[in-house]
């Protein structure tokens, strides 16, 4: 039964870089199609947590499982890195289509697979543009298309909108909310922005300063409610934001 297996499960997960203890026993469960946000002080090991979930590194101790498997995390999860990391020698569509290409499809086939997403993402007409010719918001959408086209059930997003200006960031948050409503995936999103975390996620997990532990979990009052502006300005949202900020400040103090 799929429902009994958590999409993502960390149990007593520790991670150390030599002497440096980064994660001090993390317990975390993310249900299928749930969106969980991780917030915490800078340098507390949030990105390390995503690398663990995506199967790029192994924990020093404890377990990390994605859809019930510890060994096949790379197959079930994909990481969207902080910077778009689009390859400058490929056009936008080839960049988005890189995962199907890696799985052995021809260039024409992979482009055909990626093209419908371009129209949905408002990127129609920019298929042949080089990454350098696209705006920051468009590059991030291409990067998200690339992440979706990997076809994994779990998405690990590492501060996906951190490099964007405030207006573009708000627009893309709303856009991501729409996308997830259309096509549900399990998402673990790292953010340094409490408002972004509360808006996009069902649940916000607050980590302490390094070595990181889970210090608080908050339920979002209005996850991905559209339109965004009234949703984040409601009194319940403001209260949740205040609570999250307090938790974050406590976490930063240790």
């Amino acid at each position, binding site marked *: 039964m799929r429902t009994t297996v958590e999409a993502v499960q960390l149990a007593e997960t520790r991670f150390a870089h030599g002497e440096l203890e980064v994660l001090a026993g993390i317990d975390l469960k993310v249900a299928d199609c749930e969106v969980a946000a991780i917030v915490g002080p800078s340098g507390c090991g949030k990105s390390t947590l995503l*690398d663990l979930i*995506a199967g790029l590194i192994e924990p020093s101790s404890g377990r990390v499982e994605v859809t019930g498997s510890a060994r096949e995390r*790379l197959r079930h999860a994909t990481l969207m*890195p902080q910077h778009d*990391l689009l390859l400058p020698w490929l056009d936008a569509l080839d960049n988005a289509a890189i*995962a199907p290409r890696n799985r052995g499809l021809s260039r024409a086939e992979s482009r055909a697979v990626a093209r419908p997403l371009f129209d949905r993402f408002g990127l129609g007409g920019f298929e042949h543009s080089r990454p350098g*010719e696209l705006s920051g918001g468009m590059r991030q959408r291409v990067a998200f298309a690339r992440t979706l086209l990997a076809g994994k059930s779990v998405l690990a997003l590492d501060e996906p909108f951190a490099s964007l200006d405030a207006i573009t960031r708000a627009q893309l948050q709303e856009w991501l909310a729409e996308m997830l409503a259309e096509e549900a995936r399990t998402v673990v999103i790292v953010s340094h922005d409490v408002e972004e975390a509360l808006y996009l996620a069902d649940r916000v997990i607050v980590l302490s300063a390094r070595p990181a532990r889970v210090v608080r979990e908050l339920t979002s009052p209005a996850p991905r409610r559209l339109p965004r502006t009234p949703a984040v300005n409601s009194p319940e949202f403001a209260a949740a934001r205040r609570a999250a900020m307090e938790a974050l400040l406590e976490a930063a103090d240790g």
Partner: protein
Amino acid sequence: MARTRNLLAPLLVVVALLGAWQLTARWDVLADALGIEPFLVPSPSEIADSLWDDRALLAENAWVTLQEVLAGIAIALVVGAALAVALHLSTTLRRATYPLLVASQTVPVIAIAPILVVWFGFGIGPKLAIIALVCFFPVTVNTLDGLRAVDPAQVKMMRTLDAGRWQILRRVEAPSALPYFFSGAKIAAAVAVIGAVFGEWSGADEGLGHLILVSQGQLQTARVFAAVVVLSAIAIALVAAVMVAQRRFAGWSVEAAP
């Protein structure tokens, strides 16, 4: 306009140097004072005369040398790039052979050229071997640096997008290394003509190197310099060709970075 101005500065320098040279070599007062004999230092005008008068001879021999240089560089590019990939993929191989690669560049080409003639015969073989020997090194070293300078975050991203070792090499590392490869190729193109001259000195009956040797023996100093001018022109044309290729195949690295 900017282009013309860019060309003006180097042109002026060349004209000034040639003028000074012409004066020193041909103005009797100065030439006598410095003890310059005309057969030791030809003036630019004499070299120009030789370039025109010996044009058939120069062209014929330049064609021979050009063929050697092109084939030699082609071998160096293929071998150099393949070696770089092999050294990149295997740390053991890199550690084991890198000192040898450096050592290969300390081999005095003039000393081994006659041996190469014994091995490869009197034809184009030894010339190709020498050109490839002096040209592969900058290609290998630069390409290897390029392969190792890849952004590790890009490699990480490719791994989560189902890329195996081969795909990471082909889609991320090789394109990242391409501008470095072209830098190596530019150096190779510039030194290839020297390799060709050494190769021809060790045994040849045609080519610009051979012409230089023969003309020296006949005290045809102006013709020696004319041959050197043609060699330089070949090297400049080759470097320019590499730059054109870089623009064509690695345009993103030439354009302003985003």
